[in-house]
């Protein structure tokens, strides 16, 4: 019984790390932390590895869809991963923060998703493996009404189709 409790606490700690990785700056940090020490023990083909270690999200400035230097690093890792896992396809979801009108944000989300898609293609990922969808402001990742949340919501998320979950 005690060991189960310990395990739950450990799981809680991992979840907390995962939650942190949604912050704009942290997917790259998470990759740096876990990349060296634990890589040998981790199955790198899983969805979890892609989401948490490669980093599935990139973030945009207000009203912008250009790829920042930091996003470029994440997308380069994504492209490497996709090029190493050819059975897996991806759908890129473009999102916007709540500080825009609904239809404009749909269009902005489409622009961001395309920006991610074309960068991945430029890194050698076959265009036929990538699709896009826009959610506009409909699916925020962080619910608060402040820049700390809005910066997490202006994002492109690369969703895997056909990757093993564990």
């Amino acid at each position, binding site marked *: 019984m005690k060991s189960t409790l310990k395990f739950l606490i450990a799981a809680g700690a991992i979840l907390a790390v995962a939650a942190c990785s949604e912050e704009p700056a942290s997917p790259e940090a998470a990759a740096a932390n876990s990349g060296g020490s634990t890589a040998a023990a981790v199955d790198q083909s899983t969805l979890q590895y892609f989401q948490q270690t490669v980093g599935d999200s990139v973030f945009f400035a207000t009203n912008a869809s250009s790829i920042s230097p930091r996003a470029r690093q994440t997308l380069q890792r994504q492209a490497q991963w996709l090029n190493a896992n050819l059975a897996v396809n991806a759908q890129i979801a473009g999102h916007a923060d709540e500080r825009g009108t609904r239809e*404009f944000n749909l269009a902005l989300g489409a622009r961001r998703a395309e920006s991610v898609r074309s960068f991945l293609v430029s890194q050698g990922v076959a265009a036929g493996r990538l699709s896009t969808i826009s959610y506009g402001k409909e699916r925020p990742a962080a619910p608060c009404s402040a820049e700390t949340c809005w910066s997490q919501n202006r994002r492109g998320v690369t969703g895997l189709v056909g990757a093993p979950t564990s």
Partner: protein
Amino acid sequence: MITTFLRTLAALMVAALSVNQAVAQSEDGALEITVAGGEFQPISVASPAFFSDGGEAANLAAQIRQVVMNDLVGSGLFRSIEETAFIEQVVDFDVEPTYADWQAINADALFTGHAKIEPDGRVLVKFRLFDPFSEGQVEGLQFFSDPADWRRIGHKIADAVYAKMTGEGGYFDSRIVYVDERGPKGNRQKRLAIMDQDGENLRYLTSGGDLVLTPRFSPKDQEILYISYERGQPQIFLYNLETQQREVLGNFPEMSFAPRFSPDGRQVLLSLAQGGNTDIWVMELATRKMRRLTQSPAIETAASYSPDGQQIVFESDRGGGQQIYVMSALGGSPQRISFGQGRYGTPVWSPRGDMIAFTKSSGGQFQIGVMRTDGSEERILDASFLSEGPTWAPNGRVLSFFRETPGANGRPSLWSVDITGRNLKRLNTANAGSDPAWSPLLP
């Protein structure tokens, strides 16, 4: 008296359009805008009695009278005279009132009604509208209907009173389709819902399993367009409220959205994303033929026709920020019309043709406003953390829109406001609601 009154009303409205607006911050963070200076006097209306031949009809008569009065007073243009002030007790539908008794209490209008159940089960409702100062009847109508539709009879009577007394078309016998919202902000369950403009007769049109957005009413038929994610990409669906038939409009590789009917209901303006870039197209409904109206690397979306079908208004960020442009409905070179401080979107042309309603974001707030079709005489009618998506009542005098409150527990709600800025109020909905679209007057 009626003509004098109309002239007075018109003058007051002009006055209201030109006065300065006072803006104050309220407790819930919303800006409250009061139009100062207009000495507006609502029309005083009395409803002495709705008669019946007893039984079920008595109940209907009383309820219909209440609906009429609620509509009129709810419009902000009418005031109900308390029954305790009445001098004359009208006792018979067929007897003319004693006008002097109504002049004495300054009744601008007086209406009576009568309800009767016919042998075939239908209800017959008669209604008379009197002008005490011109000492005569100015309107008389009768309606046959299924007793279950009694609320609509009330709305039609209210529309008749409104039209006679203001000289403008009514809007009470109409409905609003909107998006009912439940659940947490990050995973909202959205359902298409429709209700009478006064919030009654709520009905759900979709189950809530799929994300749906931005319903739009046909100006001609009982049809709506809306966006659904049910097949993956956001797509435009056409829903017939009478047959309940649904169909998807076109099958495009990327997102299709932002639909609006043409004034004749035969064409649909829509936005298509191609390679992530959004432009405006028009689809002929009968043939599904598509024609492209804009071609630029900027976002062009949220297009709306002028009521004569000759022009469209839309939003674009071609100049940097999101702004409003007017263009021939055939295409060509757009003219920017919004030049105020901030970003402008969701333009909707008034059914009267004289104004364009919009959403503006500026200084950390979102505002609902109207401007002339050349962009002049901008007037802000509401402002809050998020006020968005105006839709015109069929008479072009009232707008509905939604507000959303900030924070993790933020929720949207439906509001309406007169184009003078008066009578800002929240509409009754069962749950949180967004994206209202006003129907035309019901047939």
